[in-house]
């Protein structure tokens, strides 16, 4: 198994999780703050249907921009996301196997699961789990979803989020994202800096200084209205795209310190209300379809609950 380059790492993880029965999805083609926003995680965690997927997702966190100067903090970076629903009994072991697969020897490194409970106020979601530390560095988030979009998760989705760049630092033995080998052909090495450095510098400047605050505010309002309109039209997947857009607009505004502390809470609640609306509409649409991917006993449990008005 080769993990010499950043892209090898991705190929290896994809292969590993494909062998575990995961659908290998591609990145969602919209700005998101985390792989959790991808419908393959957020929406699929809702309701009784089973699901296994893995995919790379580029993430944008405008406030984390450091103009490419911090060795491991970027405003644009990659997550490798795995979701298994229901979470299997050997969930942690599977994950550790994936590390072994990458050539990480757990007898050499100090690998630990350190409590880190996850909550996304904007998605109305929370779960319990850990960040996985390797020699003190957080390389993965590990979460058992308990609630998503305000709905209880049953069965529970287990989510693994690898921080690809940080993991690659270890595998390649370098100190800085910039030095990572992204790809290698013969003697030629394309580094992470070759691919992303200029982008990181420009986007940091954009996030902190050049984004159009006024336009972003009005876009936010527009995205909110669109979501509501599409929910009324019973198009939850389309509506959800506008939730993602609203959330990103909010993150951009936050990076400009354009939202005061009190307003901040109000904006979060607005996005959450949208996410909840989408979750409910998506659930209803799957119920209408008869939850085709669910285990019969759990589908029956849901149908009974619904008949009881829960």
């Amino acid at each position, binding site marked *: 198994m080769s993990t010499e380059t950043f892209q090898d790492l991705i190929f290896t993880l994809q292969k590993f999780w494909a062998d575990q029965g995961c659908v290998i999805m591609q990145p969602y083609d919209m700005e998101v703050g985390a792989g959790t926003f991808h419908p393959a995680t957020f929406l699929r965690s809702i309701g009784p249907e089973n699901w296994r997927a893995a995919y790379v997702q580029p993430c944008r966190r405008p406030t984390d921009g*450091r103009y490419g*100067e*911090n*060795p*491991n*903090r970027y405003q644009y970076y990659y997550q490798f996301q795995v979701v298994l629903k*229901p*979470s*299997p*009994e050997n*969930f*942690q072991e599977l994950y550790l196997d994936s590390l072994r697969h990458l050539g990480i*020897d*757990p*007898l*050499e*490194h*100090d*690998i*630990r*699961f*350190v*409590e880190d*409970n996850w909550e996304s106020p904007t998605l109305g979601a929370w*779960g*319990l789990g*850990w960040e996985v530390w*390797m*020699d*003190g*560095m957080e390389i993965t988030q590990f979460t*058992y979803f*308990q609630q998503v979009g305000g709905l209880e*998760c*049953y*069965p*529970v989705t*287990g989510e693994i989020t690898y921080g690809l760049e940080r993991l690659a*630092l*270890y595998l390649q033995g370098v*100190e800085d994202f910039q030095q990572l080998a992204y790809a290698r052909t013969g003697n030629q090495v394309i580094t992470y800096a070759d691919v992303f450095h200029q982008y990181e510098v420009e986007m940091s400047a954009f996030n902190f200084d050049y984004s159009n605050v006024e336009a972003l505010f009005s876009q936010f309002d527009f995205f909110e209205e669109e979501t509501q309109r599409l929910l009324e039209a019973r198009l939850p997947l389309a509506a959800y795209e506008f939730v993602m857009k609203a959330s990103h607009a909010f993150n951009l505004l936050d990076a400009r*310190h354009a939202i*005061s*502390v*009190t*307003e901040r809470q109000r904006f979060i609640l607005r996005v959450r209300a949208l996410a909840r609306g989408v979750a409910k509409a998506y659930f209803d649409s799957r119920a209408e379809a008869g939850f085709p991917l669910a*285990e019969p006993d*759990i589908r029956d449990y849901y149908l009974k609950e619904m008949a009881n008005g829960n």
Partner: protein
Amino acid sequence: METRDLLFEIQTEELPPKSLNKLRQQLVRSVADELNKLNFAFAEVQGFATPRRLAVLVSALTDQQPDQKVERKGPAVAAAWDADGNPTKALQGFARSCGIEDLSQLEQEETPKGTWLVYRSVEQGKNIRTVISDVFTKALAALPIEKRMRWGASRSEFVRPVHHVILMYGSEILDATFFGLKSSNITTGHRFMSTGDITISNPNDYIKALQDHHVIADFEARQNIISQQLADIEQRENARIVIDPALLEEVTALVEWPVALMGSFDETFLSVPEEALISAMKSHQRYFHMIDDSGKLLPRFVTISNIESNNPTAVIQGNERVISPRLTDAGFFFNQDQKTSLDDHLARLEKVVFQAELGTYREKAGRISELAAFIAGQMGADQNDARRAGLLCKADLVTDMVGEFPELQGLMGGYYATAGGEKADVATAIAEHYLPGFSGDVLPSNAIGQAVAMADKLDTLVGLFGINQPPTGSRDPFALRRQTLGVIRICIEKGLNIDILEVLQKAGELYQKDFDVTPVFDYLLDRMANWYQDQQLPADVFLAVRGGQENVTNLSSFNQRVRSIQAFRSQPQAESLIGANKRLANILRKTDKLSGEADASLFESEAESALFASLEVTANLLAKADNYESRLQILADLQPIIDRYFEDVMVMADDDRIRTNRLLTLKAVQSLFLTVADLSELQ
């Protein structure tokens, strides 16, 4: 009957470190309680906890509950049979509830109120095997788990997913099911340094078996190992490791097999304030930091790893690679924050709410500023410096550094003030204005800091009382209790000559909302009483001073009086003077309407004239005395005269005029005492 040891273990995925020890302690308590309730004898319950298991070992647990005599009272004999001699409904029901058909098993008991039917039997004690599942189900349900979780497609709930449950009585596995798992004698060892399942053959082997598989199950034992390893590093490196007990407990809960490793970071980071570096190491990485003999931070740290790595250097290098960006971030925030002046940060407080009804932090900063200047005026300190420090003291709340490390609030403000060219006194005041942060903490070191610290706390106090949100026993979100105590300590321990009531009134005025500060003052004095109690100073001494008419609004002199009275109590005259004051208080209790002055012509004995004459002399002496102790002494000197008076004079004379005249004399005596203290409060 026999006794054996019992072992219960739940082997889980990694448990939350900050609550691990609490979970263990509660499990031990609950198991002991449940067994006691059921009357099962045992020698001891020991608890064990690691990141991946909670366990209890009950030693010498008896297998059999003692038999219990049961006595149940039934209907009265008179109501048990009807006229035809047939059992009534009441009797039938009673027999059914006792589970008997033969009514002759019932006995009769005669009482003064009549004869009753009684059912007596012996209930056979239960076997441990039939109740144990219930014992642990209850004990698990009683665990203080903040958030329970579900996993997979199960409806079971616990702190984290559960993988094995051991329940053994001696070598026997007791049959039970928890979280959908059947009990067994199987567990697992260290996540990496052990492979496969471990079978426990006997509860007593548990510790040893786990140790063989690289798990130290005993929490304290593990903590001691860590302490020893830290001590070894200190010796080897000739440096000191700063051990925060909370951090030590947390790291103990994060490892099954502790191995302390030391790493270092680039010395250039030492230009960033060390508090920020320490926060980055401690809160993010759970590292212990190291200092030299003079207390200066060293560019080194210790991490407690969970493995005897076959390549420790790799683990150290990995950790060094992590801390560097963390410290880079701290440095980034420090530089970024300084690009904006504190005055500009202050302006951004306009958008930060202090309390919904009390406005923004910007408004609060304005009030603190004015109040601090007012207090400084009373203290004789520089009012302009106090005004400036008060205005800027909250500005760091909007800085990136405090956003990242909230525990650095104040401190960072101090650094930024220095960097921004503020006076040293002002910077120190800003840095220290949150002091004292906890009971026993140090106080602000300079006068300006004391003024700002009090202004901040009193502003919060007056505001929250003003909107009728005083602290209650269970709710005190603004930590008013602690803040009030802080004010009291600053006043007393720094010997400040300020009138706290005037300061409170000023704080009220600054809100411009007609806040009544009387309840705040009362609350403050109540807290002061508690503070004395905590110092084992009897409450009566406090009440004696509070009851006196000397000004009680200067807390510092109030405190001196309390100490004086405490000292006075051990004097020879004290007991009789206290007695006399109680007597005065009793006699005068119902004489509110008494007014006027005693008439010397109505005195009948020399004792009366003597007391009367001494009053004026004493009053003159009191007026001239320049300290409280001598005033107390002057009063103490009255003791023989008062005692003689009570011996010789019958106050409640039959003659109205004489009685009234005597009461007036006593009232004058009492008033004289009350100008100093209410000695009748002393026990």
